[in-house]
């Protein structure tokens, strides 16, 4: 009998019960695109963190103008070289240092605005979905209203009325990006609120707030994580757009959108390709990386998705051949 028991224990020990976090990470790790995207994001974050070190290393501050060495006698920016590793801009500033400091702005705005937008979306979506009725009607029409306002027109009007600043850009971005996510959350909440465990909580005497926060919210973690990740590149592009139009970050503070705007003024990019190439590539890679990671996260968090199944199948076929 004891032998049987020990055998039983041994056979049970072979089956590893993996936690959902571990499973998610394992799936994510198998997805090469997600791993590469994650690497790019880490690189950008590192770039932002070590910006002061880069400034110290090169001896160039992000707003210092080197009209003597940074500009040719004709007043044309110098290309990548020993002094300026990624070239200089039209005022003789170091593009590399400005890129690093610009990463700080982009990440700050991107993450901050996305988190704020998610918070608004969750509050609106959960309230509308849980209560239904006229609350739902009001909030849903409000969502529709926000989605129908032309973004650029309204953003330009707001910024020209209040004057450009970092805070205002974040507010504008948040205002224009919570609506789609709120709709998704609302539909999820409507289906969750019908589940038995919500009924069970109700029958125990739980109030609406308790049900919304304790019962429903944890079940929304997957769409919240995925949509917040996907929202970050949007916010970064929004910020770059505003800065490009001169309505975002106030010069001389470096930002990627502002750097692109500098390149386009007086058609400087015709002679100084690096002024477009460097911030443009950074913007492209960062947004692409966040989008790919968001996509990968969605697959990893949803084990039933078709891609996960396909990958498993490929792996098993490969193993069978060996």
């Amino acid at each position: 009998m004891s032998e049987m028991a020990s055998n039983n224990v041994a056979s049970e020990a072979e089956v590893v019960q993996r936690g959902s976090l571990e499973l998610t990470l394992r799936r994510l790790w198998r997805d090469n695109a997600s791993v590469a995207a994650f690497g790019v994001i880490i690189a950008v974050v590192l770039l932002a963190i070590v910006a002061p070190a880069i400034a110290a290393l090169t001896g160039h501050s992000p707003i210092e103008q080197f009209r003597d060495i940074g500009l040719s006698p004709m007043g044309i920016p110098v290309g990548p070289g020993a002094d300026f590793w990624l070239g200089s801009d039209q005022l003789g500033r170091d593009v590399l240092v400005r890129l690093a400091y610009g990463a700080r702005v982009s990440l700050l705005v991107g993450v901050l605005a996305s988190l704020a937008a998610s918070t608004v979306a969750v509050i609106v979506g959960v309230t509308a979905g849980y209560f239904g009725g006229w609350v739902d009607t009001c909030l849903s029409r409000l969502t529709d209203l926000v989605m129908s306002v032309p973004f650029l027109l309204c953003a330009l009007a707001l910024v020209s009325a209040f004057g450009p600043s970092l805070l205002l850009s974040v507010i504008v971005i948040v205002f224009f990006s919570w609506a789609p996510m709120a709709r998704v959350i609302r539909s999820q909440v409507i289906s969750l609120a019908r589940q038995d465990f919500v009924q069970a909580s109700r029958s125990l005497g739980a109030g609406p707030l308790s049900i919304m926060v304790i019962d429903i919210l944890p079940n929304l973690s997957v769409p919240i994580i995925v949509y917040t990740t996907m929202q970050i590149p949007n916010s970064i592009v929004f910020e770059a757009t505003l800065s490009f139009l001169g309505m975002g970050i106030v010069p001389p503070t470096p930002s990627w959108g502002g750097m692109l705007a500098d390149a386009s003024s007086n058609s400087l990019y015709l002679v100084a390709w690096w002024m477009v190439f460097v911030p443009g590539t950074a913007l492209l890679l960062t947004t692409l990386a966040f989008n790919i990671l968001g996509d990968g996260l969605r697959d990893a968090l949803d084990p039933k998705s078709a891609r996960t199944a396909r990958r498993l199948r490929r792996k098993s076929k490969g193993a069978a051949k060996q």
Partner: protein
Amino acid sequence: MAILEARGLTVDIPTEDGVIHAVRNVSFSVKAGSLFGIAGESGSGKSVLTQAIVGLLPNADIGGQAWFEGRDLIGLPPQEVRKLRGGRIGMIFQDPLSSLHPYYTIGAQIAEALYLHEKIDRRDARARVIDILGKVGIPSPADRLDDYPHQFSGGMRQRVMIAMALILKPSLVIADEPTTALDVTVQAQIVALLDAMRRELGTTVILITHDLGLLSSVADDVMVMYAGHRMEYGKGAAVFRSPAHPYTAGLLRSSPANYSPGSELVPIKGRPPSLLATPAGCVFAPRCSDALSDCAVQPPPLRVYSDGVESLCWREEGASAAPAIAAPSPPAKKENGRAAEPVVAVKDVHLTYQVGSFFGPRRSLDVLKGIDLTVEKGETVGLVGESGCGKSTLARVIAGLTRASGGSVKLLGQDIGALDGARWRDMRRNVQLVFQDPFGSLNPRRRVGSIIGDPYRLHGEAHGEERKRKVRHLMEIVGLNPEHYNRFPSEFSGGQRQRIGIARALALNPSLIICDEPVSALDVSVQAQVLNLLRRLQRELDLTYLFISHDLSVVRHVCDRIAVMQGGRIVELAGAEELFANPRHPYTRTLLAASHAPPVLAGASDRSLREMRMVAS
């Protein structure tokens, strides 16, 4: 002559956690024109087996052979198997609602199979469809041909599915739990229809089900599966009369229908093994009450008996012959001096919904039409009826979750319709619910400890360590390991989850526990465990139950009085035994006639061992 011959079928399904060994070395042969039954609990591999045979498992690694009409289906290219599917092999699935396309008429859906497999013009196709619909018992088929699936009832939809499977006159029909989603009375009709179709058209039927009672009434041959292994195989009559394998015997023993009401059930202990790493010896050994020392170490041999029954077991003489119905029925504790106040007094309760669209005319829908019911302290009252009869709605009204539109519900003398917010919340302590679906009723993102502790949190009782201690105590009472306090519901099996739900309902010492189909989502062996638990708790804690179920044998087993509901009314209310012995209302008689009780174990058989051989596992 065998129409389908499977030899050493093995199915492995790769998943996140590893490879699931869903089917292990299963052989069987289906005789032409017979009804072949495959029985087993959920996860036993019975559906996977047939899906693998007809090529519906593209992701799995399938080994072995399955010979059908001279061809091995396992080795055939997918497009060849597709031609056989529908044409030569018909399929009937569990849920007739999701298997039919809601946007096409049933006529078009049935005819689609004809167009795919034959060259046929519209008029001929229509005639054939009308013909087959008539055969499966759809009244006035010519008129109903152009109706949509939602215009049919569940039973009629399943008939349409059967018509679809039979339209091409396949030689083999695979019915995967065809009656599970249907009401008892409809179940009987569908099984009778399948049986009639097989005799009339000569079609061979493979019937997959977990319902042994159903199988024993129709199957010629049966195969009992457990954890992917073929445990027992043989003639239906022989297997059900005296099962050779302890597992089959245990399954039959778990069914409440085989007991005198009120006695303790003998469930199969434990729960099915993980299919990722099955035990080295017999897969059933850890749960087997007859296990020998060899069982856990070495794979069991195949024993062939004189009456054709084959069993995968170490025990020479098969399952222990005498059914272990030793547990004496607990002493009746009904004392006559009951409290004057009933726990629940329902008087003339009506519930009417206003339905109708913005444009259409408003109609009112009567769900409850004047219900009178009292539940005394310490008794169990059963509510029986088919889906849609209003039994769950009545439960929600009594629980105070839905407000009745007429009449009064008094709980411990208080009218729950007249309570304000705070008093309503307070009243929640007195009535608790145990839900049907053990998967849906527990929040998947919260730990078991906090789920069971929820009642304390919501009513501001027992904080910190004390709450933890109480929750652990509750887990112990319902037979869960208190060390699993920090686990998530997904780490528990269905039966264990139902125990969690029961623990949560017990937390505040309610005067009434409403069990809404508490065991209908569970396997037979686990169902017996939960029923025993409910009875034990009632004995120890003096609980009062309102027990809702569609399964008459379960209700008979646990209830003192039974109320039969039909169409929003209680048509008959009587003591459990009286109702079964002497049903008054015609509807009660229909219900009783429609339920298939599993056969009673006959005890020792006269079979002898003919052959014993080792099989590779």
